[in-house]
Structure formats: C-alpha cells, structure tokens
C-alpha cells in the first residue's frame, strides 16, 4: 500500500484529474458520451455500452484482485440494502433512459458540445442530488434501511476465497461478450 502517496491530498487531486481526463477520452472514443448510443443500448439494439462496461469489469476485476492479493490495494465495496440498491437503482434506471446519459458520461457529453447534457442533464442531476440530501434524514431511517446487508461482497457472502468467485465470473463475462460479438448485436 502506497500510504504516503494516499495521504498527500494535492497530489491526489492532480492524479484524479489525470485519471478523469483519460476516462473521459476513452468514454468519448467509445461512443458512450452519445445519447444515441446509450438509448440504442437500452433499446437492446446496440450493445456498445455493455461491451465497454463488461470489458472494464473483466480487466479491472483481475487486476484489482491481483493488487489485493499482493497487498498493494484494498477493496472498497459500497454498503447496500434492498431499499437503497434496488429502489434507487430503478429510479436511476428510469432517469438513465429519460436523460440518455449517466453522471459520468453527462460530463463527457458536455465536453463534446451536447447542450441537452449541460442545460438539462447537469442541472437536473444537481437538483435531484440536492433533493436527496434534503430527504436523507427521513429516507435513511425508512426505505434505505429496508433489507440492509452492509458492504458484503460475493466471496464473503459465500465464504470462499475471492478468486473462487473472480475467475469463474470473469470467464463467464468473456463468454457473454464472445456470444454478443457472435450474434453481431
């Protein structure tokens, strides 16, 4: 673990900007910053977005778990509950289809000149996030606490070594990508 580096905040902010620039460059080159591509994905006509996400998951999962096995990185799984992850996820999903961008790609869409992303998307997300912050005290004692399971991961849930999950899951994702490629979708 590079703890000295992690504690240096200005360096962290600078590195984050560089990672963001690379991330935005990749998202734009992949077409994921385009409304037409995201809507095509949600209509199941063009699987570009899923191909990008699943390729990232395969490469990321193998590398990050290897770093963890070498004690160079720690995992940071987010806590969740059915009330938060599923209900929030469905609200997000409807927003995903209505907006046609997500919180990362909306910033990229603004960078390529999409005004609906700037004046509609960014402004809407800021208002939605602000409303959530206002509702948070009530929600956190209500729906967000329903079916709470904490920050558990699949390996911990099944009480197995992480590679017992990571290797078969990444292999299955590669097969799924291969199949999607084969059917030309």
């Amino acid at each position, binding site marked *: 673990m590079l703890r000295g580096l992690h504690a240096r905040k200005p360096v962290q902010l600078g*590195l*984050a*900007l560089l*990672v*963001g620039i*690379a*991330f*935005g*460059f990749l998202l*734009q*080159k*992949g*077409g994921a*910053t385009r*409304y037409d591509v995201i*809507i095509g994905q*949600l209509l199941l006509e063009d699987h570009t977005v899923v*191909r*990008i996400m699943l*390729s*990232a*998951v395969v*490469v*990321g*999962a193998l*590398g*990050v778990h290897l770093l963890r096995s070498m004690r160079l990185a*720690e995992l*940071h799984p*987010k806590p969740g509950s059915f009330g*938060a*992850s599923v209900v929030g*996820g469905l*609200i997000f*999903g*409807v*927003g*995903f289809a209505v907006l*046609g961008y997500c*919180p*990362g790609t909306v*910033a990229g869409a*603004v960078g*390529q000149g999409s*005004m*609906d*992303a700037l*004046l*509609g*998307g960014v402004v*809407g*997300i800021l208002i*939605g996030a602000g*409303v*959530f*912050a206002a509702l*948070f005290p009530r*929600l956190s004692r209500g729906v967000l606490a329903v079916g709470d399971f904490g920050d*558990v*991961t699949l390996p911990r849930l099944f009480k197995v070594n992480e590679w017992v999950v990571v290797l078969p899951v990444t292999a299955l994702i590669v097969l799924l990508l291969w199949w999607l490629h084969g059917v030309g979708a």
Partner: protein
Amino acid sequence: MDFLAASRWSPYVVGAGIGVLSWFTFLLLDKPIGCSTAFARTSGMIEKVFRGSKVDEKEYYRKFPAEIDWEWMLVAGVFIGSFLSAAASGGFAIEWTPARWVAAFGITPVARWGVALAGGFLMGLGARWAGGCTSGHGISGVLQMAVSSWLAAISFFAGGIAAAMLIFRVIAG
C-alpha cells in the same frame, strides 16, 4: 498518431483501458472510480452560496462534505478528456437535439431540454439513493464483486430498458 484522430475505438479497447485505469485508482489513490458524489457535493456547494455554512450541518453533507474532492476532480477531468477526444477527431459540435431524439420527436430543443432536466432529476435522486452510478456501482462495484453494486447495476438496466422501451416503442412508436 492516427488513432487519436479516429472518431470511434473498439468498445473492448475502451473497456480494457477503463479497467486498467481502475488498477491505477486503487493503487495510487486507494479509491474506486465513481462520479455521482461529485454532483451531490456541487449541489451542496451551490446551496452554501445562498444559505451559508449551515448547509454543512445537514446530515447528508456531514457524510459527504460539500467541497471539492478527488471524485470532483475526476468528473472535471472527464469533461476535459471528452473535449480533447472530440476535438482530436473533429467531432466537437454544439448540439441541442441528438439524432435519435429528432428521429422520434422532431427538432424540438425545448422539449428535449425539459425531458433531459426531468431525467437528470431522477438520475441525481436515484444515484444518491442507490449510493452510486453506472461507474461507481456498474463498473467499480461490480469488479469488486460487491453485492450492493450487482443489485444496483441490474436495477439500473432493468429500469432503463423498461423506460426506454416505453418512450421509444410506445410513446413515440
């Protein structure tokens, strides 16, 4: 350097590149890639302009302080990186209504703006409700095999596919 000027790269190359970026964020920053808390923090920063420091006392902003953090810098970088990519390929263009919208609803920029605003509202609300977005849950959380992220990512696409089918196959159909 022709590849920098290409308008599209293979989705597998792009995805693998994002996967490699996630190695670097875990190693160098001790953080998974994510985008949506940057919007929550910005919302709090804007509220502070009008209501002052009592905004910091809100329960949510005690958890996620309304200030510039690494994720905020990451989202700023996404904006810059996408601009550089679009500029390198000659793809930068001011656009009010995307082609797919025009095909379904005509050249209606005000309607598109209103719908994007409503969609953004639901997305901002849903992202903070679920505790992450397509990158924080959909990529970073899924690659960590987090149960919360697998459930959230499946819900993103279930809600998104249902709503997109309703909008484009029923309403516009």
